[in-house]
């Protein structure tokens, strides 16, 4: 019945949006029907994603799959053009998974539940659209579409400074997206043919100078989203004010859009510019890792602390994208998925802790582990995942980026030594701030002042279930990374090959001395 021609992606995107339109007319007296309705819609959509992935997606095909294209506004040459390749698929799966869990995490929301769940379902569709569209204009539209619900989710349900945070967020991101529009239009109109289609754009042959301009435009927009220092300051504010479910979306999915778009547009469509700018990306990545880790260490506000840790982890994505190796790029994609899972779990736990202590300041906590052992152990597990403990996904991602970059022949030896050495300092800094955080919240003697006016109840089954669902893939990927990497391996290999053609030193096959010598040694029969 369901053939390959079925419009899978369209259904997946439009189903939650259409379902959200029914929310205002749902009969709902006690406010409980809406959340069940949304959860079921989320589950159905996630099931659709998994089914489409399972039946229609071919691992070994590096090209676009599940392709659909319908003319939408022919006058504008706007096509409803969707598709998923190795880059999109893992992120679409992640989005379905995290958003469904976020709906479950939003169970205690009692203030304006109809509007809240309506926005959540719109987000569901909008986010997937960003990862699935294959048309520049459509990409821009869905990029903007997903901003509106998140703006309202921030400004209505956030903390005390929510309006400031939400406005800062929208100004930064909307300001950044203007660059997408300009750069995208420039690319579309360049040359003889006008086209918005990703594949057609990637096939166009732009001169280097033009590429560099467009590249910079995209980079600014995605640097805001990822974020890259110094365009990151909206993030601690937004994350500091958001409620737990919104937080899960922000950290789990929205940040990944920046990384995804960097690979999709900057690297794939503008490879020559990428070869020129890549060293700068590496440096920015290192700055992200160290700078954000240090800021996180000094932060006394729990949510902001984790927010900065997200920025720090995104540095590895940048280094991986700029590594010009299969392994590095693969690690970058893995780091995005892994951080999506880990970031969402940490932010959910921060929310759960806040629900009990009613404070985010570390100085006002202390010793709560005694009364909340389950939250304590879940928090410990997720923090260990975040500090890249082996056996968890974060470790594999970071290791792949490290090995990929260290063995990259696109950079000089000195540059690599400095970068790897500095990035590895992050390996020391991350446990310092995460373990200090755990110590200040849970360890030590109980803070009498806190326990005197707050009732500290341990985690309820719903919360344990959410964290367990997140930990299963984290540990699963950590134990056997091929689970995930095989989904996109063929795509990253193809992309790396394309990128390496653009690096002058690699194109001329100037193998560096050591590798050269090694080539000789490898042929020595004694060492076989």
């Amino acid at each position, binding site marked *: 019945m369901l053939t390959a021609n079925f419009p899978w992606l369209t259904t997946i995107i439009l189903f939650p949006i259409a379902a959200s339109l029914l929310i205002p007319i749902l009969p709902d007296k006690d406010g409980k029907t809406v959340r069940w309705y949304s959860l079921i819609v989320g589950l159905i959509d996630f099931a659709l994603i998994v089914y489409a992935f399972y039946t229609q997606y071919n691992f070994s095909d590096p090209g676009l799959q599940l392709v659909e294209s319908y003319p939408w506004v022919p006058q*504008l040459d706007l096509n409803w053009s969707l598709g998923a390749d190795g880059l999109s698929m893992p992120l679409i799966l992640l989005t379905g998974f995290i958003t469904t869990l976020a709906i479950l995490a939003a169970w205690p929301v009692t203030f304006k539940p109809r509007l809240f769940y309506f926005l959540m379902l719109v987000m569901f569709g909008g986010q997937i659209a960003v990862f699935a569209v294959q048309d520049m204009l459509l990409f821009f539209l869905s990029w903007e579409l997903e*901003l509106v619900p998140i703006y309202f989710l921030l400004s209505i349900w956030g903390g005390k400074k929510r309006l400031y945070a939400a406005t800062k967020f929208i100004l930064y991101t*909307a300001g950044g997206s*203007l660059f997408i529009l300009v750069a995208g239009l420039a690319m579309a109109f360049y040359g003889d043919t006008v086209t918005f289609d990703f594949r057609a754009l990637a096939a166009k042959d732009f001169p280097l100078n033009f590429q560099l301009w467009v590249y910079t435009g995209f980079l600014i927009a995605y640097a805001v989203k990822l974020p890259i220092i110094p365009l990151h300051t909206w993030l601690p504010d937004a994350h500091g004010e958001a409620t737990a479910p919104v937080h899960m979306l922000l950290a789990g999915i929205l940040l990944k859009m920046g990384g995804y778009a960097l690979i999709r547009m900057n690297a794939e469509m503008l490879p020559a510019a990428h070869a020129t700018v890549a060293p700068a990306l590496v440096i920015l990545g290192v700055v992200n890792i160290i700078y954000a880790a240090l800021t996180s260490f000094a932060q006394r506000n729990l949510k902001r602390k984790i927010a900065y840790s997200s920025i720090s982890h995104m540095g590895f994505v940048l280094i991986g994208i700029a590594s010009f190796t299969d392994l590095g790029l693969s690690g970058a994609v893995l780091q995005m998925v892994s951080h999506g899972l880990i970031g969402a779990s940490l932010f959910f736990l921060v929310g759960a802790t806040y629900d009990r202590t009613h404070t985010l300041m570390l100085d006002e906590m202390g010793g709560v582990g005694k009364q909340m052992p389950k939250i304590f152990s879940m928090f410990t597990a997720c923090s260990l995942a975040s500090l890249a403990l082996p056996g968890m996904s974060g470790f594999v991602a970071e290791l792949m980026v490290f*090995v990929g970059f260290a063995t990259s022949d696109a950079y000089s030896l000195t540059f690599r030594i400095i970068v790897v050495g500095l990035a590895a300092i992050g390996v020391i800094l991350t*446990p310092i701030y995460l373990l200090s955080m755990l110590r200040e919240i849970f360890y030590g003697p109980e803070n009498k002042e806190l326990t005197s006016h707050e009732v500290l109840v341990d985690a309820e089954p719903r919360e344990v279930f959410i964290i367990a669902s997140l930990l299963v893939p984290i540990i699963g990927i950590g134990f056997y990374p091929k689970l995930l990497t095989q989904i996109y391996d063929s795509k990253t290999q193809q992309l790396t090959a394309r990128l390496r053609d653009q690096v002058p030193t690699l194109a001329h096959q100037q193998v560096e001395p050591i590798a050269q010598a090694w080539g000789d*040694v490898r042929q020595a029969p004694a060492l076989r």
Partner: protein
Amino acid sequence: MEPIYQYAWLIPVLPLAGAMLVGLGLISFNKDVNRLRKVNSILIVSLIGAAMTLSFGLLWSQIQGHAPYNQSFEWASAGDFHLSMGYVIDPLSSLMLVIVTTVAFLVMVYTDGYMAHDSGYVRFYAYLSLFSSSMLGLVISPNLVQVYIFWELVGMCSYLLIGFWFYRKAAADACQKAFVTNRVGDFGLLLGILGLYWSTRSFEFDVIGDRLQDLVATGSMSGFVAGLFAILVFLGPVAKSAQFPLHVWLPDAMEGPTPISALIHAATMVAAGVFLIARMFPMFEGVPASMDVIAWTGAFTAFLGASIAITQNDIKKGLAYSTMSQLGYMVMAMGVGAYSAGLFHLMTHAYFKAMLFLGSGSVIHGMEEVVGHDPVYAQDMRMMGGLRKYMPMTAITFLIGTLAISGIPPFAGFWSKDEILGASFAANPVLWAIGYLTAGATAFYMFRMYFSTFEGQFRGTNATVKQTLKNEQLQKMGLAFGPGAMNPKELTMDTAIGEAVDPGHDDHGHHAEKPHESPWTMTLPLLILAVPSTLVGLVGTPFGNYFEAFIHAPGEAVHLAAEAEGLSEFYVMAGSSVGISLIGITLASLMYLRGKIDPSAIAAKIPFLYNLSLNKWYFDEIYDELFVRGSRRLARQVLEVDSKVVDGVVNLAGLATLLSGEGLKYFENGRAQFYALIIFVAVLGLVIFSGAT
């Protein structure tokens, strides 16, 4: 014998399964699982018992001369990069398997008695099982990446177990210190692995060694770079095996329950560093400069540990510094190329040190009946004395351990330590001299410990001693608040020390007058461990070194027995080291048994040296100032820059009028939606407009 090799993967998987089963139970049905104490502990102990049986089978098969067995599967790949995981069973790994499983098994039996009154009994077993699994995975790793993975996992277990009593502030600080210090070492190890992979394109131990030597020999890689990589890799063992300068975490790690001090921080995990050096031996051997660094680091650590252990009053801290010192011996042995001597000492030390720690746990357990569950009193040797009368089994096993570590023949420690000293004399007499002096100091501080714990009069009910300890404790806390912040005596005892008391134990409310011998679950492991502590050294005597015949560096020629001149040299060396041990013992007995020499008078004569030793050479203070405070200061400055400069500039540059000054008021009035809407509409308009043209 093949099936036993095919199922060797069960050895780490069995305890892992146990840990996961119990862990899941604890999370899902906390109350019920906690009630079923014995069911959980019996399950976990029998799983490790099964792993132990398998390990013995493998060791036996390896001794029979079975070829090494290797099994692997592809774990990660990207492009032409392939990384496999698996397991390798060779003499070294089969020996390590037996050491780890036997010690773990006995420690787990012992735990039943030691943790009987603790509310976290089941959780403790789950952690122990998880640790055993990680440690077993480490020793059978066929490549460096797998070693690194399990290396970190044992570190994590150590973190969880040191912080087991998380409501104690000292434990909370100690577990973080341990993890972070180990991460510093892992940082080096990771960089070293990356460097080695870059230059040799391999993660396999022997392949790396071969290719690296080849690269240096052909001159395509400078010896300096090779040395740098080797030393980076060595940083891992420096942290894990508590070598100078990353040794500071080990003594603090004694805040964890005593069974884990025995298992993790004496017998197995801290020896992982020596194990890694042994695994990477072909690589280190090819870089002579790194061997020198290893040897001198080990020698200095051996001396440093012993010099601090001499003045410690906390029985566990004393043993911790002794562990550090003994690990120094092993590392020194590796550095001078005495591969099998180092591993031989690893084996003997694992047994006798585990026994000593378990013995100290038994003592603490007994003391707690008298002085309550407070580590300040229960672990201080000044409160003990005369315990032999009350705890005869503990006393006799502790004495055996003390004799073994002091290097008195025929106990195990004598043979292994002597082999190390002999090898280091051949390499460099200065190294030998350091090791030789340390051996004397070892005998002194170990007998000081034995005499003040088990001999003389019981001081546990002596009020003056108790008051001294209280004051010392308060002074320490007073210092923590800042010098001169308050007069220590003004602090009330209840608030200051009361916090340290462990609420997890159900205090029986009544204190006994006299300590009692521990239950059989605790004494039986002690008695069993006494057997290898006494006899295991006999497999490696110079008259017939079966140990070296079994375990030797790859490509090394082996002679079962030393030749005649070697033997006479052995008699000279052994005689002199037994001699200095006897001097140490005599001194200790004069000071602490017979009271002929007053130790405090000597301390008063050399206050500088005494304080240096008592304050652990001030390493903690120096590191605290340099690294802890330094990094905090740096972090605060970066945050300052972030919130003032970066945020400020970015805001000003684009949005000065909107976000600063008056603009903010509009947003707080709720007009933000309006602004956002304008932007959104404008953007949409732009799309349509630009699309139309």
